[in-house]
């Protein structure tokens, strides 16, 4: 992402969904005086002169607006956007989203903002809106449609949860509890009758879980895969006797052990099937944090943390991957994004939905850089430059 200042050339887009999400959050904060904020979606490869004509047309239409402040805001914004786009032949393959307008800091006080975004996913429609806010819905749809969803079923005797892993977070969406008696309740009654009754109840329970799973998971169009987890043979019995829809059965990508039908079981299920989920932002972030912890202990020279140290490592060109926590705030994230643009450094925002984000914010002050060369090089470097100037 870049703030547009006249020229479009040489610009790269927002690289991932995480970055886009933060951008959306920022865009949502702006407010216009009346309907003066312009959201413009240009579909991929569209000729820009074509777009400019439409915008000029909008400019003339705007001269009919009665309220003077509104009129000048809209026309002024259109002019600036036209100027920024001028000279470009066509939109990039993924398209371009432009947001421009005067943000009302307080009545009578306005600040010009403009963002041109080349999103990580394709824009397929042309859209122009003028409103009191920026329209981010198209970008939001993009995120939810692009991130694949994984279903997770954790089942124990008498207890089960269904969770969804969506991009950068997971959530438990259903819990099934059912009374399947334990062994010692047999006391007094016929062992055989008890046995049959228990088996029957176990089967009823499997059916209830499968029913819920069918209801929830069949509705998800971008369901990529299903993980079935739990202790011991219960999960296999569930698959055999529960009656999970055959379309869902086909989507099972892993059957793994997990201790409990709750948060911890879901975490274990994700961890145990990490290899099959590595494309999700959640697992990517988790694995990176794991790497950070590993390096911090085994090769501590290859890591720096805290804002100043990380910025220094970036400046000196020895940072390889920079991890920042969502907590440090949008403005700060933008600053770093801009700073790293064009550099061969990966910037990863660790979302708060990842458990280890707490390590990043609490232990490392929100900033970590994995280094290409050991950190002592910086010191040597500084010493060397000092001796040169002496």
């Amino acid at each position, binding site marked *: 992402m870049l703030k547009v200042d006249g020229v479009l050339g040489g610009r790269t887009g927002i690289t991932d969904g995480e970055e886009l999400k933060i951008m959306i959050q920022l865009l949502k904060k702006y407010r216009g005086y009346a309907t003066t904020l312009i959201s413009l979606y240009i579909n991929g490869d569209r000729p820009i002169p074509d777009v400019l004509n439409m915008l000029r047309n909008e400019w003339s239409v705007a001269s009919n607006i009665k309220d003077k402040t509104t009129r000048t805001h809209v026309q002024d914004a259109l002019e600036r956007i036209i100027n920024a786009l001028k000279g470009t032949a066509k939109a990039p393959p993924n398209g371009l989203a432009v947001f421009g307008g005067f943000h009302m800091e307080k009545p009578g006080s306005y600040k010009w903002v403009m963002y041109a975004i080349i999103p990580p996913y394709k824009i397929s429609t042309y859209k122009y809106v003028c409103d009191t806010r920026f329209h981010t819905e198209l970008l939001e749809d993009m995120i939810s449609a692009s991130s694949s969803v994984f279903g997770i079923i954790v089942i124990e005797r008498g207890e089960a949860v269904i969770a969804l892993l969506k991009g950068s977070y997971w959530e438990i969406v259903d819990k099934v509890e059912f009374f399947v008696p334990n062994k010692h309740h047999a006391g007094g009654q016929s062992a055989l009758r008890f046995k049959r009754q228990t088996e029957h109840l176990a089967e009823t329970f499997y059916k209830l879980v499968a029913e819920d799973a069918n209801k929830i998971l069949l509705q998800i169009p971008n369901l990529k895969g299903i993980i079935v987890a739990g202790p011991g*043979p*219960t999960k296999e019995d569930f698959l055999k006797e529960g009656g999970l829809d055959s379309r869902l059965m086909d989507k099972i990508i892993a059957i793994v052990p997990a201790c409990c039908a709750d948060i911890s079981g879901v975490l274990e299920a994700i961890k145990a099937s990490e290899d099959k989920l590595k494309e999700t932002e959640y697992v990517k972030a988790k694995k990176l944090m794991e790497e950070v912890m590993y390096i911090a202990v085994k090769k501590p020279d290859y890591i720096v943390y805290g804002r100043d140290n990380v910025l220094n490592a970036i400046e000196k060109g020895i940072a390889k991957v920079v991890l920042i926590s969502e907590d440090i705030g949008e403005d700060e994230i933008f600053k770093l994004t801009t700073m790293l643009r064009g550099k061969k450094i990966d910037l990863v925002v660790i979302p708060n939905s990842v458990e280890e984000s707490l390590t990043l914010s609490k*232990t490392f002050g929100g900033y970590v850089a994995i280094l290409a060369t050991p950190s002592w090089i910086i010191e040597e470097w500084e010493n060397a430059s000092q001796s040169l100037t002496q």
Partner: protein
Amino acid sequence: MSIIKNPTESALKKPHLNLAIIGHVDHGKSTLTGRLLLETGYVDEKAFAELEAEAKKLGKEDFKYAWIMDRLKEERERGVTIEAMHVGFETPKYFFTIIDLPGHRDFVKNMIVGASQADAALLVVSARPGEFESGVGPQGQTREHLFLAWTLGIRNLIVAVNKMDVVNYDQKRYEQIKGELSKILKILRYDVNKVPFIPVSAVRGDNIKVKSSNMPWYNGPVLLEALDAIEPPPRPIDKPLRLPIQDVFSITGAGTVITGRVESGVVKVGDTIVALPPAKVGDVRSIETHHMKLEEAKAGDNVGINVRGFERQDLKRGDVVGHLNNPPTVAEEIVARIAVLEHPTTIGVGYTPVMHVHTATVPTQIIELISRLDPATGQTVEQKPQFIKRGDVAMVRLKPLKPVVVERFSDLPALGRFSLRDMGRTVAAGQIIEIKPAKVEIKR
């Protein structure tokens, strides 16, 4: 007719002890438990003959003793114990509640719940070549169960070296196993000289009730003698009532019954009690142990309590019962001292393992590493460490992700010690030092 006979009234008048049967999968825990019951006349002969016939028919005759304990379809099909099973039996001196526990690593959760109620543990290890070795290996449950038993405060330990028939009752194999286990026990600080190692065969019945002629070289006690010689641990009767719930069920016509072991205090028929975290209040209608009615139950007793005012769906395993004037503590945050047993990399803030405390199992997040301590002296060696790793002892702040009852270890040890597990491994053991209580409103 149940296959296990109910204890007589005179048996129930003896002092009670809870015995956990622990050990690696397939080492013969259920078989040995079945055998103990059989030898002491607690198995109904007619019912056992039927069970024997059924096992034979299914080609699983070698499991006939284990099936006295393993009753679930999935247990019998796979030949593994899944759920803990409580049964009563007696020695000359004591009335025992035996808790036959699962050895399979997927069911360590159930093992901990059962073992948390025990005064003593009987570790069953198989002498069969390879079986003993996998049990004490790094992933083995012989090792893990011993560690958990120590963490749970079990200091009375007996080792049964089982399947001696498979190794021709070889004294060398016995000595080798005893030697290797002694090393692990010493690391855990068990007093090895006080731990009997008894060579047995659960299937053949050697050294269980009478001394076996197959092992003339052994001159220690037989299993029943060793059980009879256990020193009962102190019972905190004068402390406030705490009963962690092991199970809840409803009996048509009778109402809701909770089961579990009274960890401290005394509960009487007619008492008003409260279960936390759900904050449900009820009146004790009746108390039972092994089908005998009691007027009161005290620390150490394993009981079923029929409560007016409790509904089955409101309560679950892990909830804790106490009296209204001194209710159990629901924790919002916990400060604990933990010892890291095993972790592939390192533990930082944000780590989210499972906490096992009394009968509760709750996901818990480490939200602060307060300090690192010298394991020998307990002195602080580092304030606010960035991470802790295997072998470290540390003070940490924990946040249970679901409401759970705990107590300070110094007040009520049974509710103040816990283990942390993750990805099928026991990662750490801990003791609760401080609790930030959650606000809970108790309404009648």
